[in-house]
């Protein structure tokens, strides 16, 4: 299992600043904390979508970011999958073409994850010809998950993928997420402010508050003490 070493500090023009450092080699790591604690910023830095003022990111043998050495690998070359809170499916493409988008662009690397199997596990077979505007919230999020997987990511980032869904749906999508983690074992970093989700999915928790890491460890430990302290 590859190890992720992360350190970044950044200040937005609006004033919010974060300085976050952690490393993890867990199968599923949760970034846990209240909204506005910098969780999404951390994911954006890992994905190469936000360029921090200073920092280093190492993924196994690769260096994705080292601001001192002037290294900043482009987002499209990091082989990171990103599942966004509001799915961000391409509205002008059918489900099938959304799924193929990343596959076509990373053909060489993505052989380990088969299209047919992704469609089967996420139950997307009946949706392929449809357009995103004709999908329900849960369906959109399943397609977004499939699209990310099919780009053959070495690391999967999920930014509160359940936040925009109804309570009833959350549980169903969580089941799909568990299947994905179990089936392909892609290392995953999962952002959430929901303790129950974190407990179910993650085997390591990094707790963020106001742009800093306050605790990290196994879910039982971190979530327990975060409850007792609040």
């Amino acid at each position, binding site marked *: 299992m590859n190890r992720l070493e992360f350190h970044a500090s950044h200040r937005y023009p609006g004033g919010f600043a974060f300085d976050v450092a952690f490393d993890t080699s867990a199968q599923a790591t949760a970034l846990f904390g209240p909204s506005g604690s910098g969780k999404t910023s951390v994911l954006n830095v890992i*994905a*190469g*979508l936000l360029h921090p003022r200073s920092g280093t990111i190492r993924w196994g043998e690769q260096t994705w970011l080292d601001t001192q050495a002037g290294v900043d690998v*482009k*987002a*499209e070359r990091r*082989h*990171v*999958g*990103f599942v*966004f809170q509001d799915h*961000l499916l*391409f*509205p*002008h493409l059918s489900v099938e073409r959304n799924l193929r*988008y*990343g596959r076509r*662009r*990373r053909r060489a690397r993505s052989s380990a994850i088969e299209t047919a199997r992704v469609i089967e596990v996420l139950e997307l077979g009946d949706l392929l010809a449809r357009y995103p*505007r004709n999908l329900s919230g849960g369906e959109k999020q399943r397609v977004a998950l499939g*699209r*990310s997987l099919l*780009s053959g990511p070495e690391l999967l980032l999920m930014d509160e993928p359940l936040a925009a869904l109804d309570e009833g749906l959350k549980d169903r999508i969580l089941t799909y997420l568990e299947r994905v983690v179990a089936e392909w074992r892609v290392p995953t970093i999962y952002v959430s402010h929901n303790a129950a989700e974190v407990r179910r999915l993650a085997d390591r928790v990094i707790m963020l508050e106001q742009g800093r890491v306050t605790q990290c460890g196994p879910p039982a430990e971190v979530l327990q003490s975060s409850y007792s302290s609040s």
Partner: protein
Amino acid sequence: MPSLTVEEWLALRLSFQVSLCAVLVSLPPAIAMGYLLARWQSGHKWLLEVLVNLPLVLPPVVTGYLLLVCFAPRGPLGGMLESWFGVRLVLTWFGAAVAAAVVSFPLMVRAMRVAFQAIDPRLEMAARSLGAGRFDAFLSVTLPLARSGVLAGCVLAFGRSLGEFGATIMVAGNIIGETQTIPLAIFSAANRGGDAEVWRLVAISIVLAAAALLASEWLERRQSSREST
């Protein structure tokens, strides 16, 4: 409708040729500029906006005069064009097309900018996380989503080019069959006192302008209805 004279047919055909060429010439820079103005966050953006919109408020004759100075055979750009590519702009139909392109550029950019602004920039982030480079993400996601707005800009610029007069007469002159577009033909006919001829050309101008405006309006509505789904 009474039939057109040969001279009028020439003017009509030339107007279409000049306008189409003007749209094609300005399309790539207009897309780039519309996108830049929609996405670029900088305190200096106003300067660029002023430059882009200048032809909209300048008298076209002034724009035409400046073009004439630049593209005259002994001018700074005209000399280069002629010696490197053998292309001459002054007193040619291509010069008329360049004049129309410059004058209609701000309208084209404006329509495209509005279309690009309405598209969630994070869709490009999603594309990049799937392995697309910046340019690829633009071509495969943003541009197709903005296509109605881009087309609306083209139609609007086409309509504006059909009506171009001031800059055209400065750069290209008023040569029948070579640079005499409909507005110039109207000008010549009115000077000759040919009332019937003027009215025929005026009617054609009104119909073409209204058609272009209707088409661009329809396209822009289609763009905004697509955004709301």
